[in-house]
């Protein structure tokens, strides 16, 4: 073992600083957060915290607001992942099409720009667009003689409104991953399928889509993690409302954290962390198994 390490000493020497940084700035805060979740809030940040076992977890799991928030977060994540990946894949296929070759760069830029736009600035603009008293969306609907869109102030429409804003911000990133994968695919397979008499749908479904598995896995895992942690859009656009309709776990934990209820807040964060890990591993395992078949 020591011989092997010595043999690759240059590699380990180069990797060590980054491994140390990952440990200090990546893993240590997670460990600390989990540790705080087992302490009494008032003593959590002091030099001698009082440990209360799973008491904070018991409080959190008995809290109907948390349970509702958890269900809401999972539902929203499923919707947002499906909508973002479907939209991104559709746009990637369109942009990859030879018919759009001339405007391809413009479309790529247009769809990727929101990704590099500061999220707070983008969501402030979306809040303004959805505003029911002076927002352009409702003004346009009114001009067209259509009923007003409830936007952020109706429990029936707020999830859609938030989802649209998040789609605008994130879909360009997923699209870029899909485009990279599309560029790497083996086009000879499509020609072979065409010669064998496959139609366009069959080529897409049986030949192109299976080759996109790496991009699908990466995007699926990344999007799942991303939307489980939905936070900024809520802070900027809805503050968890109306009537808790967008009170997702991250925001609820933040509210408790802000009240100094560190134990419960970090217990929620730890539960969310566990869900993220389980879902991510599950997604990898599922797609690996599908790949093996």
């Amino acid at each position, binding site marked *: 073992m020591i011989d092997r390490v010595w043999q690759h000493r240059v590699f380990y020497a180069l990797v060590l600083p980054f491994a140390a940084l990952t440990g200090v700035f990546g893993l240590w805060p997670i460990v600390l957060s989990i540790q705080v979740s087992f302490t009494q809030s008032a003593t959590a940040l*002091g030099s001698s915290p009082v440990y209360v076992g799973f008491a904070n977890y018991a409080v959190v799991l008995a809290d109907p607001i948390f349970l509702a928030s958890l269900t809401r977060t999972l539902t929203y994540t499923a919707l947002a992942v499906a909508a973002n990946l479907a939209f991104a894949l559709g746009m990637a296929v369109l942009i990859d099409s030879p018919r759009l070759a001339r405007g391809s760069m413009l479309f790529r830029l247009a769809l990727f720009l929101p990704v590099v736009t500061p999220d707070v600035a983008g969501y402030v603009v979306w809040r303004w667009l959805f*505003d029911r008293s002076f927002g352009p969306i409702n003004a346009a609907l009114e001009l067209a003689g259509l009923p007003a869109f409830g936007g952020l102030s109706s429990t029936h429409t707020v999830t859609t409104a938030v989802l649209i804003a998040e789609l605008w911000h994130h879909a360009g990133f997923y699209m870029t991953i899909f485009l990279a994968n599309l560029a790497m695919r083996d086009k000879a397979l499509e020609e072979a399928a065409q010669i064998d008499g496959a139609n366009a749908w069959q080529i897409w479904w049986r030949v192109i889509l299976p080759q996109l598995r790496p991009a699908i896995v990466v995007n699926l895992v990344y999007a799942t993690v991303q939307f489980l942690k939905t936070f900024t859009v809520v802070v900027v656009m809805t503050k968890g409302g*109306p009537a808790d309709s967008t009170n997702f776990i991250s925001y609820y934990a933040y509210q408790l954290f802000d009240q100094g209820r560190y134990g419960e807040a970090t217990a929620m964060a730890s539960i969310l962390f566990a869900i993220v890990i389980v879902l991510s591993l599950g997604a990898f395992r599922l797609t690996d198994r599908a790949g093996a078949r």
Partner: protein
Amino acid sequence: MGIARTLGVAMTAALLTALPASAQQLTIWHDLGDNGVAWFERAGAEFAKTRPGVTVRSVSYPTDQWFGRVISAINTNTAPDLIFNNYERVIRIQSQTNRVADLRSALAEVADKSFLGEDDLRVATFRDRMIILPVQRVQMAFGMRKSWLDKVGEPFPDTWEDVKRVAAKFRDNDPDGNGRADTFGMALQAARPRDLIHMLDLFVFGSGLRHTLIDPAGQITIEQPAHAQVLEEFLKTYSEYRFVAPDTINHSFTEMYQVIQGGRGGMFRVGDWNVRGWDAPASLGGDFVSGPWPKFAANRDNAVVIGGMRGVAVPENSPNRVLATEFAKFLLGKEAQQASLELVGAGVRKDLNVDALSPRQQYFARAQHRLVAYDFPESIHTFYPELEAAFHRKLLQGLAAPPRDWKPFIAETAREMRELAQRLARN
């Protein structure tokens, strides 16, 4: 030799430069913005006349950040010397940390304190501990855009019926004269737990009632006829009356101020601390008038609401606790109080000169109308914040899907709050 002399001079200069840094500096965290920073700067300069070498540095945080920062600083022994805020906010700090110093002995050492009444001192005390020295009374009046009132030909409304009539005109009669239907009767807020209940508090206490949700005996009050009337009308303000912007359900302080200062809301809360800023040309330019909250019944007096006391507190782990307590006492002195009145708009002393203030500032400084104070249920019922949060959630559910008849909704809410209060009291 020349080099040695140069080095000697440089070292002496460095030492002299370092000397003031070793003098004591008091740090105070508050949420009063620029006005507060100016006040503490002036009070600190006055304090330094009796304590040479002492400087006071104040830092203003947005209210929600102030909570988190103070709690974590006290809990990690990195507390500032002093903290300053509303009484109920300091209660929350004490509840979370149990390390806010008892200032009873400090108050006992203040020679001139006759201006502090029993109510003031009761408000400053939480669980037998004086957690703040009260230095500002928080007054909140009902405000109107003066030019809008003139435009729609109405006097300052007195009763709730007057308010409804004027609010409808503000909404429908283009009071700002820009030719667009972009104005609202009122600017309120609702998004976060304290936002909505704070607005309700103002209408409840301002109309002469004593309790918003629960009385000292633990009885839920919202179903009692006089209370139910105010609550129902308040909820209709957000729903069927359409007096507020449609997105108000997501509005917190920031958005409410945008509606007020952006010239879209005609009626609003005016806090004594708002007046100086709103007198400025860049804001409302003094185009507002303050008065008592509306009457909901002819047999009840209306009032301007005292939303408690703002005061200064000293964390037990304050780095300069003795000096910090001295400065806290100094804030009750005439110079600091005069500065507080001029720069923040409030004080507690009765011997201050108010002649230089604007008429709108004088309305508060002279206490020109009957004053009614909050009931501070959190000082009696320790579970109140949780009960209030549940009340807020229930009301927001109602506002999100307004029922045809609010009376059964209010009865149902009262029943749920009663059950929750009993459960919380048992625990």
